[in-house]
Structures are given as structure tokens and as C-alpha cells.
């Protein structure tokens, strides 16, 4: 079971499109044969050889082993193919975008819901189901003086309301 193929003229590969071109002339008698089986067998054998070469080239590409399987890094395609739409015209930068670029302001990255809890050494949600903000409500033992230190969720809500009132 050989995996190597001898070819007089090497194929032209476009690995980005997973395609190859064979310039070797085909046997006209076999192609135009009246017996379709002969024609199909000939085409299948030529196709198998060329496909083998293409697969060999594809599997020679740099690989990346992941949990899902082996991934091959495909290069960019080399054949020029016409686009469906014209190239987008570059839009003028908005006033904010220009300001942010000059000042070096980067967009704020979303923190996400999980927060690292030192005590348990696990990532717990900041709020919501089993949220860390409700810790004090459900704790069965509360140290003296802790009530003043940490506000429970109810107290936080009330304090914000008070702050709004006093601001006026």
C-alpha cells in the first residue's frame, strides 16, 4: 500500500482552497471510450493518484493537537478569484474614536461574573445564584463587629437609597 506517486510534471497546489491542478495530458482514447466502465476506471485511477499527492501535501502542513483532534493550519489561497461585492470604502473615524486613539484609551474589557474567593480557593459568582454578595445573609455564624464591616445585600440597597436622599 504505497503512499508515494510518481509524476512527470508536478501538480500546482493551492492549499488555501485545498485544490490542485494537474497539467499532464489525459489519455484521449480512454476518455472518449464507448465503454463507460473503462473511462470511469481510468478517471478514478488518475484522480486517486492526484488526490493522494494533495492529501500528502495537506498533511505536511503545521499541525496543532487539540482536544477535538488534529488541526492543520491552512495557508492563504493563491488563486485569484473574483469577489461577490466591491471592497468596503474606509469610513471616516468618529470624533470619539480619534480622541480615544490619541489619548490611548482602550475599550473596557468585561470582567465577567466570576470572582476569585480566597477562603475557598474557587471562582464564585459575584452576584446572582450562590453569589458572594449574599454571603452574610446565609451565614449561620456571624462575628461580632462584622455587621458593621460588611453590608448585606439588603443593607447595600438601602444605603444607596439614603445616599440619593442626602445628596439633595
Amino acid at each position, binding site marked *: 500500500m504505497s503512499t508515494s506517486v510518481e509524476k512527470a510534471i508536478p501538480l500546482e497546489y493551492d492549499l488555501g482552497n*485545498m485544490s490542485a491542478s494537474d497539467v499532464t*495530458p489525459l489519455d484521449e482514447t480512454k476518455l472518449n471510450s464507448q465503454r463507460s466502465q473503462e473511462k*470511469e476506471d481510468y478517471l478514478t485511477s488518475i484522480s486517486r493518484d492526484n488526490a493522494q499527492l494533495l492529501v500528502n501535501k495537506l498533511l505536511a502542513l503545521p499541525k496543532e493537537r487539540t482536544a477535538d483532534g488534529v488541526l492543520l493550519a491552512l495557508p492563504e489561497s493563491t488563486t485569484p478569484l*473574483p469577489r461577490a461585492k466591491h471592497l468596503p470604502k474606509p469610513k471616516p473615524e468618529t470624533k470619539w474614536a480619534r480622541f480615544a486613539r490619541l489619548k490611548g484609551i482602550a475599550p473596557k474589557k468585561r470582567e465577567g461574573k466570576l470572582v476569585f474567593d480566597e477562603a475557598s480557593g474557587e471562582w464564585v459568582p459575584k452576584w446572582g445564584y450562590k453569589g458572594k454578595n449574599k454571603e452574610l445573609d446565609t451565614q449561620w455564624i456571624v462575628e461580632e463587629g462584622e455587621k458593621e464591616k460588611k453590608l448585606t445585600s439588603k443593607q447595600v440597597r438601602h444605603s444607596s437609597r439614603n445616599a440619593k436622599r442626602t445628596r439633595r
Partner: protein
Amino acid sequence: MLRQVKPKNARTKRVMDKREPKLLEGAKIALFLRGNATSQLVVDALHDLHALKKPFAVNFQKKNSILPFEDSSSLEFFSEKNDAGLAVFASHNKKRPHNLAWIRFFDYHVLDMIELGIVDYKPISSFRTVPIVPGTKPMMLFQGPSFDSHPVFRHIKSLFLDFFRGEPIQKLDSAGLSYVIVVSAGEASEDETQPLPRVNFRVYSTKLLKSKTNLPRLELEEMGPRLDFSIRRVQAAQADVLQEALRKPKTQEPKTKKNVDVDLVGNKVGRIHVDQQDLSNLQTRKMKGLKRSAAEAEDEDESEEEDEDVVSDVE
């Protein structure tokens, strides 16, 4: 051009943004249309091609009285409405039996068209293999010298590559090498009156078998459809439109500066080119002490006179 729709809610705005031209395009959507008269064979072939093109395909069931080579306005309307870059139009009449017209669009206008008549057809259903997962990227092979030399065959190669290649991807799962589309054609004769050779379109599913080397041995099993095309009318793309369509976006790579290098130690070494110096206007160092003032010049003159007197006395 259709009337410009101004989005009134977020959903329509999202649809419009999806249709905006992008730097990197995805797979082109293909429209499958039928003409006023169709044959069972050509409709089945259309159905099989639709199966290969899924999910980037739209299949229309109704008949349309369109003549692609006479009036393409209807096709352009369809292309704009469905955001399609490709179309296959099936028709059948006495003069052109089992006809498929393959059309490509650029900016919703016809770019180029080619008519291929089906001479031989074997549907997918006649082959006993497992059908492919729609959306898989196929491997493609073009066999025959004419695909590089003859303009019509180059058109066919470009068309089939564009049609079947699917979405451009960076990383391919090695299990994704599941099927291969092979297009073969004999050599076109020098004589232009002779008909062009037939185009043989085959689709095989691959089987990778263990071999003694690291690489697997490939075996092909025909999966269908099996189509033999004869080339009929061709409408090539206009040169300027094609050039516009083939334009590539400006790459964002940082240009490597010439004459600047990093040597072995890690120092940045460069070469600076300076213009030639004008030596007549050089600025040199001035030594003030060496300057001859007016008083000094007088003293010198006096001393010269005294010398002369001494000489006359001696005489």
C-alpha cells in the same frame, strides 16, 4: 438597483449590516433557478448540485421566463434580493437540451456566464455511499492541460473553484478531508471550428487507510453526482469589471524598513545616507587671540620705519 431600505428596528439593521461588503468575504450564496421549460434530468441535476452547495444555497421551485444571455435584469434582481454571488439556471429546449447556465455576480450585476449542457448524468441516489455533512469544505482537482491554457477552461476552473470551495478557513480538522471534486477535460484542439472537449465532473468520497509510512493511503469511492458537460455559449467578464472584482485589500503588515538590521548582539544597526557637504561654507573654530586688531597693525608699521633709519646711518 432596488430602493434603499432604511432600517427601522435593530433586526433589519442587523440584516443590512450582514449584507455590507466586507474585507474578507465568506462563502458565496448560490441561487438555483428553473426556466420556462425544464426536463426531469436537468431538475435532478440541479437538486444534486444544491445538495453539494448546502447551506450556502437557495433553491427556487417555480418556473421563471428568463433568458440569461438575452436579458439579465431579472437575474440581477434575484441576486440582489437574495444576496447571492452565484446562480445556476436550468432549462431545456430542442436546441439546447438539459442546459445549465452558471452565472457569477459582482455587486449584484452579472460578471460572467457559461452554459454547460448535460450529456451524461448519474444522480447521487444511484451511488451507495454515505452522504457528506453539508458545509464540509471539499478538496478540488483539475486534470487536463487546457485548464491552464485555454480561456474558456480557465473560466470553468475559476467558476468551479468559486462555486464549491465554501468558506475560507484557517484551521482544518484532519478528519475534514472527506470528499474531493474532480474536474477533468481533454486537450482542446488548435482548430477553432472543432467543438471543445467535454468536461467530466466527478465527486468521490475519500477513505484513508493505514500504510507503512506516516501518511495514509487514499482510496476513492464515487459518491455522485456524475456529470459530463458539453460547453455551449460563454459570456466572458469585461476586463475592467473583472479587474475591480479581483482587487485585493491593502494588507496591514508592517513594512520591514530597508537598511535597518538587528545584529547578533541585539543592537539595531542602520545605514544613514547624508548629502554631500559644501566645503566652501564650512564653519570652523574661531580663536579670538589670533585675531589681528587695528593697534597691532600700527605698531608693525612703526617698527618697519625705524629699521630703515638705522640702515641709512651706517652708510
